[in-house]
C-alpha cells in the first residue's frame, strides 16, 4: 500500500531550516539563538527564512557572547524550553566550551537524571575552501570524547532533516555538525550527492544507525559527513580496477553504531577510516580500536588504515590545505595499499 510521499530536491541547508521550521510550528517551546541567525538567516543558511516566519522573539540574534547564550540555552532548557543554539563555526568552541561540556553535557548526570536538557547546538565544520586554521576544523571527535553529548554529523539533506527533527525532539543535548561543503550554498562548491530528495512531511532519522551508502565486498570505508561523498567517488574509481569497496556513513558518533562497523569489517576483512578531523587521538583511532578489540571474532586481511588531517593546523594556502585534508586520490591510494597489504 504505497502512499504518495511528496518530495522535492533540497540542499542540506534548506533541509535543516525546514526541519527547524516544522518543529517550531509543532512546538512553541522551540526557539533559536545565535549570531546572524535572524535577518542573515544563518551564515550557512541553517535558519534561512525563519525570522520572517517566526519573528525576533523566536529567532534571536545574539551578541558575540557564546558563553552567555549557550549557557542561556542550558538554563532555558532546564525550565522546559527547547532551545536551538548556533555556534557559527565549531572552531569557536574554545570561547564557550565550559558551558558546553561542564554544564550542558553533565548536568543531567550530576542531577541523577533529574534535569533534562533538550538543547540542540548546531555548528559548521570542515575545510576545503581555504578559510585557514581557525575556520576549517571538524572537531567532532573532540566532542565525542567527552561524555554527555549526542553527536550528529549528517552527510546529506535527507538525513539532515530527519536527524535534525530527531535532535530537537530528543530530551538531551545534541550537537549537530554540518559540513559547509555539503550545505549546497550558492557561494561554496559542494558535493552534489548531498542535495537530495526530501519529503515535505516531518520524519525522523534515528540516532545510532549507520547507513551502508554503497555495498562492497573487499574493503570497508567507515566515514561520515562530507567524506562520505569523497569515499563514494573513490569507491567508484577503484571499482574500475575490480575492487569492491563498502562505504559506511556513521551519521552519529554518539551513539555509535558499533555493530554496523563490525558487521561490515567482518564481511570485508579490511578497514579504512576516512575522517576530516585531526588524525591523532580522535575518531579514526576509536573506530580502529573497536575493530582491534574484536580480533577474537573478526579476522583482518590487511592492517587498518586511517586517513585524517595529519595533526597540523589547517593551512591556508590552497596546495597545502589540499595536501592535509584527505582527498579522493588519497582514498584511492589507501584502498589500493590496503588491498596490496597483508597481515
Amino acid at each position, binding site marked *: 500500500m504505497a502512499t504518495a510521499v511528496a518530495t522535492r530536491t533540497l540542499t542540506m541547508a534548506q533541509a535543516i531550516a525546514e526541519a527547524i521550521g516544522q518543529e517550531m510550528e509543532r512546538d512553541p517551546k522551540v526557539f533559536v539563538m545565535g549570531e546572524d541567525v535572524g535577518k542573515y538567516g544563518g551564515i550557512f543558511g541553517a535558519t534561512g527564512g525563519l525570522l520572517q516566519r517566526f519573528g525576533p522573539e523566536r529567532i534571536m540574534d545574539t551578541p558575540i557572547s557564546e558563553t*552567555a*547564550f549557550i*549557557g542561556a540555552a542550558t*538554563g532555558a532548557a532546564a525550565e522546559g524550553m527547547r*532551545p536551538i543554539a548556533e555556534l557559527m563555526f565549531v572552531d569557536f568552541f574554545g570561547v564557550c566550551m565550559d558551558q558546553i561540556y561542564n554544564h550542558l553535557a553533565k548536568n*543531567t548526570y550530576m*542531577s541523577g*537524571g*533529574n534535569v533534562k536538557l533538550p538543547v540542540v547546538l548546531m555548528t559548521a565544520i570542515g575545510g576545503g575552501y581555504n578559510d585557514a586554521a581557525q575556520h576549517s576544523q571538524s572537531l567532532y571527535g573532540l566532542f565525542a570524547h567527552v561524555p554527555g553529548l549526542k553527536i550528529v554529523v549528517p552527510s546529506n539533506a535527507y538525513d539532515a532533516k530527519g536527524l535534525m527533527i530527531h535532535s530537537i525532539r530528543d530530551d538531551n543535548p545534541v550537537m549537530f555538525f554540518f559540513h559547509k561543503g555539503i550545505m549546497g550554498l550558492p557561494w561554496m562548491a559542494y558535493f552534489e550527492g548531498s542535495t537530495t530528495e526530501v519529503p515535505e512531511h516531518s520524519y525522523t532519522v534515528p540516532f545510532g544507525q549507520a547507513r551502508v551508502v554503497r555495498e562492497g565486498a573487499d574493503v570497508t570505508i567507515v566515514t561520515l559527513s562530507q567524506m562520505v561523498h569523497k569515499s563514494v567517488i573513490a569507491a567508484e574509481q577503484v571499482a574500475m580496477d575490480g575492487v569492491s569497496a563498502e562505504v559506511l556513513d556513521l551519521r552519529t558518533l554518539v551513539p555509535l553504531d558499533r555493530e554496523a562497523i563490525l558487521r561490515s569489517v567482518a564481511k570485508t576483512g579490511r578497514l579504512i577510516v576516512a575522517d576530516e578531523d585531526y588524525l591523532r587521538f580522535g575518531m579514526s583511532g576509536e573506530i580502529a580500536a573497536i575493530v582491534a578489540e574484536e580480533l577474537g571474532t573478526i579476522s583482518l586481511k590487511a592492517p587498518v588504515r586511517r586517513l585524517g588531517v595529519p595533526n597540523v593546523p589547517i593551512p591556508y594556502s590552497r596546495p597545502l590545505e589540499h595536501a592535509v585534508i584527505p582527498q579522493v586520490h588519497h582514498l584511492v591510494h589507501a584502498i589500493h595499499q590496503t588491498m596490496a597489504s597483508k597481515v
Partner: protein
Amino acid sequence: MNPTTNQLLWMYETMLVIREFEETMVNVYLEGKLPPNIQKGLAFDIGSGPVPGEMHLAAGQEPVAVGVCAHLKKEDTVTGTHRPHHFAIAKGVPLDRMAAEIFGKVTGLGRGKGGHMHLFDPEHKFSCSGIIGAGMPPACGSALAGKKLGTDWVTATFFGEGAANQGSFHESLNLAALWKLPVVFICEDNKWAISVEKSVSTAIPSNADRAAAYGVPGVRVEHNDALEVFAAAGDAVARARRGEGPTLIEVKTDRYLGHFQGDAEVYRPKDEVAELRKHDPIPALEGHLRALGLLNDQADAEIRSRAHRRVTDAYDFARATAYPEPEEALYHVFAA
C-alpha cells in the same frame, strides 16, 4: 521595603539552619580524614571519611542567601556557586536530600552523582556549579524562559567577587540588560578568592560600579546584614518582576572558615576572622527581632531547637541511607 514578621522570622531561622549545617559539616568532614587512619605520612586525607572531596562552607555569608531568597517564590530560580549550601537552604531545597547528596548517597538530590558542588533540585529550582562564574549564563536562560512562558518569575544568580573577573560575568550582564531579563545578579564580596585578595584581582573597589557598563542599577550593600541585603534585593526583585530588567547587587560579606576545609589559611591575617566574627549577622538579627518584640527567650529557644532538629535530622538521614550500587555509575548520562 520592610520585611514582614514572617520574613524576619524566616530569615532568622534560616540563618540558624545554615550556620548549624555548615558548622556541623566542619566536624563531619573531618571524620576519617586524620591520622592514624590514613596513609602514613599524611596530615589529612581529602578522599577519606563519610564526606570526601573538596568542601566549601559559607558560615558567615548567611545574610546574602536569606536576604535575597526572602523575596523569592518557589517558581523563581536560583543558581549558586561552588559554595552552595546557604543558597540551597534559603531557596528551600530539602535539607535531608541535600545532605544525602553531600554524603554521596542514593537518596541524595542527584543520587550521589553530583556531590557538594553540584546540587540540582528542579522542583525548588536550584542548581549550582563548581566552575567559577558559570552560574550566570544559565541564569539568563532561565529568566528568558520565564519571560517566554509569560510568567513573572525571577532568577537570582550568586557569584563571588573573584568570579566577577570571569568573562561570563560581562557576557551575562550584557545579555540580561540587553534583553531586559528578570535576573538579579548578586556578588558575594567576601574579599577572598581562595588566597587572592580582592585588591589583587579587581581593578576597582566595588563591583557594583560595573553595573554602569550595562546600563543597569548597581547597588553595594556595605554590611554583612540580612536586613540591608533584604532591602536591596527587594528593589531588585520587584524591578525584575515588573519586567524592567536586571540589577547588580554587591554584598560585603564574611567568610569565617577556610576557602575549603583543610585550608591552613597561611595567606590570611591571623586575627581577621576573630574581628569579622564580632559582627556576626545572626546575633545582629536576633537583637533586632528582640528589639521589635518579635522574639523572646522562649520563642528563640523554640526556633533554635527546631533549626537544630532540622539539621540533625538531615545528617541522620544522610548517614542512614545507602550508597548507590556501582552499576548506577553508568546510568543517567542521558535522560530517559
